[in-house]
């Protein structure tokens, strides 16, 4: 009886329409999970009936704030302007570009697959390795710049919850190598644009920035 069952099961399994389904793409999975977790996060406290965000709205909304600082000497805040020029500290030869985590809810809505075209809109893009992760600050040492004026270090700073969201989105790990892009306002682009280094993503960066 059980042989008969096994035979029937095997015959059905041979006709399984999902047997040729490829494994899920980790980038897509990451974006999906990020989408789901931020969806609830913003949906719960949001009781004001704010309309649902359209797909890449966060990209447009991202153009807000850049803080550029040189070893804490000063910080410049610009709104809606291109302020990618890094500022070197007069005392210290190490230059730093400060970026911000995307705002809470920035990742609400669906992500489109990262494209070179959308990525080329970023005015800061670099290849770097995480040197340090503190509560609200991720520090990366850059190795290559695709866009923006090169600095030695880049810090990503944000309110803790926002940074958590970014940590989930990009999954910065100490010592890991990442490709990171930020849009006009110095907010890190998530949704698969900034991610752990991979040859595929590197190719996208090279394509987007003509390198």
């Amino acid at each position: 009886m059980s042989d008969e069952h096994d035979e029937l099961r095997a015959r059905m399994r041979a006709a399984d329409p999902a047997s040729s389904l490829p494994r899920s793409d980790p980038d897509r999975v990451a974006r999906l999970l990020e989408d789901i977790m931020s969806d609830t996060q913003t949906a719960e406290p949001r009781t004001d009936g704010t309309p649902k965000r359209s797909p890449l709205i966060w990209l447009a909304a991202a153009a807000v704030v850049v803080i550029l600082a040189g070893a804490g000497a000063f910080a410049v805040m610009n709104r809606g302007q291109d302020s990618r020029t890094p500022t070197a500290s007069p005392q210290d030869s190490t230059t730093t570009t400060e970026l911000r985590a995307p705002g809470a809810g920035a990742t609400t809505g669906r992500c489109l697959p990262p494209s070179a075209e959308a990525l080329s809109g970023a005015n800061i893009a670099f290849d770097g390795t995480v040197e340090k992760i503190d509560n609200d600050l991720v520090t990366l040492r850059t190795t290559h710049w695709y866009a923006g004026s090169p600095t030695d270090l880049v810090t990503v700073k944000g309110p803790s919850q926002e940074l958590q969201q970014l940590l989930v989105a990009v999954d910065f790990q100490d010592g890991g190598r990442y490709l990171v892009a930020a849009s006009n306002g110095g907010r890190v682009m998530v949704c698969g644009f900034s991610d752990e280094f991979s040859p595929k993503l590197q190719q996208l960066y090279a394509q987007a920035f003509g390198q």
Partner: protein
Amino acid sequence: MSTDEREADRRARFEELARELIDPLRRFLARRTDPATADDVLSDTLLVCWRRQDDVPDNALPWAYGVARNCLANAQRGERRHLRLAAKISVVAPPDQATRAPDAADDVLLEAMAALRPEDAELLRLWAWEQLTPAEIATVLEVSPNAASIRLHRAREKLRDELRKIQQESGHEQSREGSGS
């Protein structure tokens, strides 16, 4: 634990759970609907898992299949009511766009599955494709393990009957074709 830490912990647990569930759920949905609907229902299902994280049992997968099944039913009720008859007729044959069955499609089996009642065909899919035990099937279908076991037994018998019937009929057809032209 601070609120932030709790939130981070919740996220970490969900990520771990979701990564376990995603591929089985994708296969579950690929077997039952077209790719676009499968994508939507996968998101819906994971969203339910995220919101009801505290309700997820240790053996999460059968429970998640149950959620996916309900989400799929909702999606189909809402948007594709008019297609339900078609879906009923071709219970097992996935829609055109769905992932293709292996090259040498077992047409006889597909025909036999399509001849079964949808409930019986679903039981057999859960048994053979998702490879669930009767107790797990019971979780998915929200019936008692005993009922699942009995129904599964009957469904297998019915499938065998259908297979025999089709094989006999096709035997006749072949001989007709042979003598006809």
